[in-house]
């Protein structure tokens, strides 16, 4: 049982503030049309995550969270965006994200998801002693929003970004609900994500060689055959 969250108002508000900024960035990813901006928002999400991990680390004086924050900074702010930018560059991906559902509808859907997550998380938040009330709902909402982005966007790279966004949201929830997972798990997940991104990158080249496009609908046809 982790110690109860310090009731210091300002710090509490700070964590809440960062959480809602994270939610905001998920929304921004949903609304964004340009690929490069998407990656930038992802990097920003990494920064927010680092900050909130740091804040929780200081508040709860759990030293391992400091390392988590450092890892987050290294992986999610520096390394992954760098890889993604390189991918964009190599694959000559520019311009706009193509979506299956038009953007306003996606955003209305996104709002519905937020309402749903907040409703769903309300009883859980009552139980949680660690978290500033409501952050679970915020984490859940960000997670589902990233999922929504994976569903509604067409290009393979946006799917990866959605996946990474989901991972961010999960990480955020974990940090706030339980002061993070054991170090080994965190490290494992971080490397998994990294490897995953590499694998995706290689896949992209293969996919493009085969179909001359990164549009997912071509993969649909292969599965039919």
């Amino acid at each position, binding site marked *: 049982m982790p110690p109860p969250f310090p009731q210091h108002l300002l710090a509490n508000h700070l964590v809440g503030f960062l959480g*809602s900024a994270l939610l905001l960035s998920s929304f921004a990813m949903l609304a964004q049309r340009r690929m490069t901006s998407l990656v930038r928002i992802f990097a920003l999400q990494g920064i927010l995550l680092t900050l909130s991990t740091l804040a929780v680390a200081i508040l709860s004086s759990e030293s391992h969270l400091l390392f988590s924050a450092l890892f987050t900074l290294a992986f999610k702010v520096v390394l992954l965006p760098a890889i993604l930018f390189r991918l964009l560059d190599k694959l000559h991906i520019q311009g706009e994200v193509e979506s299956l559902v038009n953007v306003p509808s996606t*955003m209305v859907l*996104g*709002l519905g998801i937020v*309402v749903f997550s*907040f409703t769903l998380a309300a009883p859980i938040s009552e139980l949680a002693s660690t978290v500033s*009330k*409501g952050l679970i709902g915020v984490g859940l909402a960000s997670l589902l929003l990233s999922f929504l982005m994976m569903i509604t966007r067409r290009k393979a790279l946006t799917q990866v970004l959605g996946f990474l966004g989901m991972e961010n949201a999960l990480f955020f929830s974990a940090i706030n609900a339980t002061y993070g997972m054991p170090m080994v798990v965190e490290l494992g997940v971080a490397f998994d994500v990294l490897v995953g991104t590499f694998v995706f990158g290689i896949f992209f080249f293969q996919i493009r060689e085969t179909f001359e496009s990164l549009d997912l609908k071509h993969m649909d046809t292969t599965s039919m055959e």
Partner: protein
Amino acid sequence: MDVSPLSLRSGFFLEGAQLLLAIIGAPLLAGWIGLCRALLSNRSPAGILQPWRDLLRLFRKETLLPEGTSFLFRAVPYLVFAALASSTLFIPFLGTDPPLAPVADAVVLVGLFSLARMMMAFGAMDAGTPFGDLGGRREMMVGFLAEPATLMILFTASLWSHSTSLPAIIHSLLDASDKFHPSLLFALLAFILVFLAENGRLPIDNPATHLELTMIHEAMILEYSGPLLAMMEWASQLKLILYLLIGADFFFPAGLPKVLSAGALAGGLLLLSLKLLVAGGTLAVIETLLAKLRIFRVPEFTALAYLLATMGFLIHFVLEV
């Protein structure tokens, strides 16, 4: 009803000062934005007084009335100006409690802006040119998209005070200024989007364009000339400063004097001008960075504003209560 603790005389003074300052300051702010934009795009600026010079020049000209227009065409600039000028009395920006503020709450303000917009569209359509109709139609279109978002922003800002009365909102925000308000973060972003849309700035409308097919605001005032045109231009500058004043009230209320003394008033005014200068500069940066959106992308823009504001509202109950 006891409207205010102020005495009648000082209240009257405050309202008069608000009206005059906003009316005189609006062209100056437009000049400042133009100056920043010129510097950012590496042109030599015309100076902060340029809009005033333009207005005075227009006022000295003769009014040319297009044939076939009705009396409404002549009345519109005054109606628009009156609707916006009256708003200066209700928005607290010199002190927290202008005595006339209870006349109109935030929703009424939105209504007044909407009244001005509708009148402008009528003026545009009265001449019976394709451009006027185009401008009026597009203006109304941007309006119906931005209005629900504006309302949601007001709702979010009013959550702390449980009231849409502007002084009440400001007081509650000033009292709670030692806290972070995540909900206001959402509302602020939404406000910026709505602000750009409602005032015909990039990326919705280009205030500098006279390219026929892309303009909104300019198309509406195409047939106006002389003093009538001056009134229209002045009114739109007034609208810009009013929006910024509302924004300053909601999101950066610090430093707004609660009591009326010469010192507090001067300090508040100084701080306010600083806020407006920064806001104008930021606007110039935004406009320099962004390209104009296709007109059918505008709903996405305003839908985002609406959703952000609504999220702010919901976030308030999840994180702040």
